[in-house]
């Protein structure tokens, strides 16, 4: 019984850690996170989130009790949905190096 519970917990933790990027993008847009952070997490009025997002645990901890101008998401988004958002952010590729963008070198 204990073994089964442990397996379930580990499975849940793994699912939380991996997340579903498609659902994450949907939630990211529905909750209008993009209004501050950009549709690709590039930042705007709010800070940049991607590429290389912070860990799921850090994301959940921050979103529940943010600093600065970020609204607190206490009950509007589940931990699983936040893991999905994190998974979505993790799929966003890094931009080209600045030196390879001619418009940024003029």
């Amino acid at each position: 019984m204990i073994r089964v519970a442990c397996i379930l917990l580990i499975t849940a933790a793994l699912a939380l850690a991996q997340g579903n990027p498609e659902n994450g993008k949907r939630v990211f847009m529905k909750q209008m996170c993009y209004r501050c952070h950009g549709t690709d997490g590039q930042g705007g009025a709010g800070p940049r989130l991607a590429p290389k997002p912070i860990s799921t645990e850090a994301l959940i901890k921050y979103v529940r009790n943010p600093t600065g101008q970020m609204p607190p998401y206490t009950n509007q988004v589940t931990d699983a949905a936040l893991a999905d958002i994190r998974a979505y952010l993790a799929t966003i590729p890094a931009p080209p190096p600045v030196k390879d963008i001619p418009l940024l070198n003029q």
Partner: protein
Amino acid sequence: MAKHKGTGRRGFLKGAAAGAAALVGSTGSAPAQEPAGSARPAAAPPSVPQRALETGPVASVSAEIIEAPGSDYMVDVFKSLGIEYYAANPSSTLKSLHESILNYGGNQAPEFITCTHEEASVAFGNGYYKIAGKPIVAGLHGTVGSQHAAMAVYNAYCDQAPVIVIMGNILDAGQRRSYVDWLHSSQDVAAILREYTKWDDSPVSLSHFGESAVRAYKLAMTPPLMPVALVCDEPLQERPIPREFDRHIPKLGTLAAPTADPATVTQLAKMLVAAESPVFIASRCARTAAGMKSLVELAELLQAPVVDQHFRLNFPTRHPLNYSYRTRDVIPTADVVVGFEVMDFWASLHAFGRGREANPRRITKPGAKIVSITATDLFTKSVYENFQRFEDSDLAIAADAEATLPFLLEAVKREMTPGRQRAIEARGAKHAAAWPKAYEQDKLAASYGWDSSPISTSRLSMELWAQLKNEDFSLVNDTVFLQNWPLRLWDLKQHHQYIGGRGGEGLGYGPPAAAGAALANKKFGRISLNIQGDGDFMYCPGALWTAAHHKIPLLTVMHNNRAYNQEVMLVQRMAGEHKRAIDRCGIGTTLTEPNIDYAKMAQSMGVEAEGPVTEAKNLAPAIARGVAAARRGEPYLIDVVTQGR
């Protein structure tokens, strides 16, 4: 807003009699709106003759020939002041002045600029001043036109932009010919603007008008520069110029700005030379190119970092001493901070905590000397609190910063010693080494989301810079809603290249102010670029028609994030704090369902346009077409669908 056609005195008597009959039996206390089926008798509507006065053709009356109306003299006064433009929506209470501008004045200096809203007329003047360095006249129709214009006057007041506002009125009740004349008249029409204009007057004779107009111009153009209002009574315009009036126009003379006294200037110079880490903050320091040149010279002389708050372009964007977006690198360690015409000096030196209470804390180190130089200390009003929080400065110099800077420069040179010169040079070397690193950080930040759709504001900015950097151009609206990328990344060196935005942060500024600035730029063959937010645009899109009608070369690039994005974020914050649904915060804050087609709006008003552009790869050719149109002297609009910020 309805405007009535002129009528003769006979028309007035006829209408007045009918109107009086219609008013008999009406009650004075009925609410404005009654529910359907209410038994309460409705207030009597305007009679047929009254409506005819408002909406019908000009009444047939005996012609009265007036060969030299008072409004001709008013045009002479405007010409003497070098007024180039009269921006207005046509107004019955200013109809004689209107006609005099066209036919007596030849529609040249001033030329009539047709605006589709009084708010636009004043904003047009706000933008025009910031390029031309002098005011236009904006004509407002009596009560209702002044009410329309009020926010734009407040914007200009806060922006220290002089506009001469002319307000139509019919003060003498015996001269009012219809109920509309009563609706549009006031015993004190300037009252609505009085708390945010520098001065107003209601002349009762032509000599009075001449004197007051010249006084108004003088006050408007003496720092702190502000709008002024002059009531232009309809009978004064329309009656003949009295034979005995010699049409004298008072002399304006050269206007000298107020400067600090020599002893105070020397005191400040000593402080600056002795300082180990002085910092300059500038909001509207550079009224002209000369102000920018002086500030650069002073900063270089002292190797002092400059925080340009960009209500004008006070300092070159890529100058190694530019710390506009790195304030925390210099203000906390400064031992002397000098504010040059700083709009909100207190907030510049404090940080706010999170939460309902502001919990501000000072960010300067203990003992740092705080100095302000500002002409706003010479003229402050009470009701509107644009004067901001009081800063407890060590030295408050009530003087115009731009006019004082040359004297301060000379004083600093006098006080300089070889020892201090070496220390200052060492300080400069540190700043010079720091700047490239900061610039690379900005470029890296700009690269994120480079190919995003909607298009990132950094990508949009750099696509524009690529095609404008070799042009003589002017950015004629602010950049705060696109993360200030142009001011962070573009190489802006000339004062006219950026003119700031809304002084009072009131929406309805961008399109008309940009058009006014663009008209001022036209004589220099200069391209004007307005990166225009969609929310602000929808307040007064008619300015595009004005640009088309008057052939004003203005390139409008829509920053179309399909929202009042600031308000989206604010309501999200409230929902979060209230532990309620954040995903509903688009209600009332977004401009979707349907999306607005700005290109079609522009095209309907005679402005060539394209879009919506949603992919970054399509920006360059669109911008090329827009720049080409502006080079040809035409307005052009590109609708770009963008990220929120």
